[in-house]
């Protein structure tokens, strides 16, 4: 059993729905993006293409962050989900440097979205999950996955560009898509073996 995600770049329209719904689901503080979208342009006018690349933690099979963590705060579960146990994190940020995908964020100090107004009721409720002085990152919405739900970015994607499932099961939708559509990983040469695949 190894959870993985497949993102279909043909379907993705770069609408930032994933980035926004992650913000709501996980109540991440300002400047912290467990899910984000990057845009790049290729070609010369009028033959131009723009590519949207949704990013999140790659939940690598061989995670550099786990190796770099001196306190055992970064944990890889049996099912492949890599998460941060913030009670053990000492805030050394070695993992930020170790992660080749820029998927980790350090929560330095308590900040709110409306500067000068304090916390909104939503932030009062949500930021209890985000102590300061620790590192945070996407955990594949393990609170949802453990209830049998898909991660929020998968469930909400309005072009159905995201799929979630068991990479170890050759019959699963994600395995089939990777096989049939030629799914690829980011920076495969690094040997991290990400659990996030992109379809062309």
């Amino acid at each position: 059993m190894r959870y993985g995600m497949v993102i279909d770049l043909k379907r993705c329209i770069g609408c930032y729905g994933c980035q926004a719904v992650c913000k709501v689901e996980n109540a991440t503080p300002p400047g912290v993006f467990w899910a984000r979208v990057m845009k790049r342009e290729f070609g010369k006018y009028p033959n131009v293409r723009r590519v949207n690349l949704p990013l999140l933690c790659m939940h690598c099979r061989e995670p550099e962050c786990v190796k770099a963590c001196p306190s055992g705060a970064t944990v890889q579960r049996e099912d492949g989900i890599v998460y941060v146990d913030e009670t053990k994190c000492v805030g050394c940020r070695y993992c930020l440097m170790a992660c080749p995908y820029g998927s980790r964020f350090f929560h330095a100090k308590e900040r709110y979205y409306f500067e000068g107004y304090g916390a909104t009721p939503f932030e009062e409720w949500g930021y209890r999950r985000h102590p300061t002085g620790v590192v945070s990152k996407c955990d594949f919405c393990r609170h949802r996955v453990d209830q049998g739900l898909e991660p929020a970015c998968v469930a909400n994607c309005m072009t159905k560009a995201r799929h979630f499932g068991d990479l170890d099961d050759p019959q699963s939708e994600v395995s089939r898509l990777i096989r049939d559509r030629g799914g690829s990983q980011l920076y495969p040469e690094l040997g991290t073996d990400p659990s996030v695949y992109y379809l062309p």
Partner: protein
Amino acid sequence: MRDANDVWIPSVCSQCYSCCGILAHRVDGKVVKIEGNPESGNCQGRLCAKGVSGIMTLYDPSRVNVPLKRSNPEKGIDVDPGWVEISWEEALQTVAERLSKIRSEDPRKLLVMASVMTMDQMYFARLFGSAFGTPNSVWNSGAGNHCGNAEHLFGALLHSAWSKQPDTDYCSYLLNFGVPCGFGAYYAATGMAQRIADARARGMRHVVIDPFLSPTAEKADEWVPIRPGTDGALALAMLHVLLHELGAYDREYLKHHTNGPYLIGEDGCYVRERDSGKPLIWDAVDGVAKPFDAADIKDFALDGRYEMDGAAARPAFAALKEHVASFTPEWASPITTVPVATIRRITAEFAEAARIGSTIVIDGKELPYRPVAVLYFRGAQGHKNATLSSMAIELLVEMMGASNVPGGVLGQNSRCLGHPKTGRPSWSPVAGPDGLLVVGGNWSGALPYPWAQPKKPESMSLGGLAPTVIVSPASLPLVTLDPEKFKIPYKLEMNLHVGTNYLMTESDPKVSVAAFKDLFQVSSSLFLDEATYLSDLVLPDTCYLERHSLTAESVSSNSPLEEWCYHVRQPVVEPLFQRRNFSEVMLDIADRVGMREDFNAFLNLLLDLKAPYALDVSRKYTLQEILDRRFKSMFGEEHGLEWFQEHGVLKWPKRVEEVYWKPFVEVRVPIYFEWFLKVGEGVKKVAQEGGFDDVIETSAFQALPEWRPCASHQEKRSEYDLYAIYYRVPVHSFSATYNNPWLDEISQIDPYVYRVAINIETARRKGIKDGDWMDITSAGTDHTIKARARLTEGIHPEVIAMANCGGHWSKFLPIASKSDKGACFEWLLPLTFDNMDIPTFNLDLCAKVKVSKAEG
């Protein structure tokens, strides 16, 4: 048992006009998550970034929380009104006194403004205005940047619908003139995103014609850059290729479902049977003219010239064909900058994909199969040439017979046969005068057909002058400034202003200030936005998460496919602070003004409340009671408000006869707009009699399409060398979402949302680097706006493009009004009749500008 401290509440989003069904999670009184309601056909359980971010609109500390009145009598575009808190009682008393006085003197002096951002309040405000007795209700300021004006006109005339969509189940070739349908904006934004993605994955070819490599164009199979304002010329050239080079058109469709066979005389009008007055057609077999609906017609002639009582006549189709003979690709290419070979190639692809003559069996019914669709909206039609360009684009669909049949263009819910139990609501296009389509009951604009004779205008938008004006005419501020010129015998005194930021969504803000600053403006608003700088009173409205709504079920937000969906909007939390739902406030005001009976009568009429659910006109009802009656009247006693509050959505499957209605309804549509000629003559006469024919120029009332240049195409000063355009992004709605910090954060990260896109080579010539501040000066208004450059290869070299309506300046919107938050396009748009399409009073968005690197 539900735990009241941890509940999911079904309701309806209002972060744009799409009305997606939502589930809001409330824990200990706080809204902690908004998800798409999987039961809602509008969104199918998935929301856009705006939709999930509504929590920050609810809790925004910049929201208006108490009634306010201005203490500074001086009004201006950035003059602090000096807000002072007052009680609701004082506010309502002031409003009621003003309204009572106006109503007793002349109710026309009241203007009601609203916004499609709050469809429910807009609808209620329109009812209020109608019951009050003013013809100046309701005006949406979005006519400037946003409205489909002429597109809606042809939606009504050809599709019996407010707007339209491709048949995503079967379409195989979508020719898209810059519409973000399926890309996070436009109608049914989230549902169409899924469907268009499915269609693209299925292999539908998507060709996007757009000056900018927009979020839509970047996902297209082919991007065809075009000079702004010339889409009509491209469509005309495509018509030329279809009719003269390829001979590709659906003869059977044209014969039986259009006025293509109607004989046109030398005066451009129908040749009519003397006694019945019916338009005649030529029976090609019998070789005689017959009324178009004669039972014994053996074959309708589409071509040829015929002698009729000594005068020549030809079928409307033949007239069209001759008319487009000169519009060759060689003619269109220098206008549009689209290469001749590209025009011929995409036309040939389009024609081939249409599979004219083929059929498909759906639900046991054999139907025409025309898997090609054409979309256009603000980009292609937002010009001086709106009516004639829209006509040209529409005719591409009609020539293929791809209108409201499988695979083609579908009106958004043109036909409804009702809930299976009650048969309600129900509407259908029907045949009107001359056998032509009259739009069904799902219609909220002025009725364009049967056409009304142009008459002396009574309203500030010149309502009644031309039946081709459908919605939110850009004429209103100009007439408000000078009603005497148009022989309007009164002046506006009060503006009941409901949630529209007209200073940022109409046109040149200075004109708007001049037009509206002397009115007593009462605003019901979420924010102290730019438009409230001119308010005398501001009432704190509830946002959609704090209120019940009468009409959260706008059918434009339903996909034409799959199922009918009626939702309820209900409070997820009680209104915070002193906010009040303006629909409820209007009920209170109606009572205070003594117009309860009129209001209730209008509610009965327009909500179609049938016994026993019709309102007793003399009784006072709460909004919830009215809502309950509306639902029961439509869907039966068991489906009252309580049922909806629990279930959120009532739905039932759409039928083939509804979705693909064309083969099932005996009705023709025009491909030759004969009566436009008569409308033009009538408008000219009224304008001459009224002495305002100097501004109302009627040459665009034509039966067949042409292409005419916009003012920007004729700009002679060489330094004004670029066209500025605006486009929509999926993370904002108009100007309304810029203070939402989650959306702001995304906008800062995105390369384009807050920047103005300019071609790399063009920028190099002007010495502009990526990220540089630019001065952008409009040839039409002479205003200069500042914005930062984003250099890209993905834009026509003659064009700069800006997203939505950024560049706020209200000091009460601290996030939106910071520097570097986009540009306000309106400053570039001159508001003059010269700059409008007269048949629709649609404002031209083709702003010619000069651009230079800003100093310092």
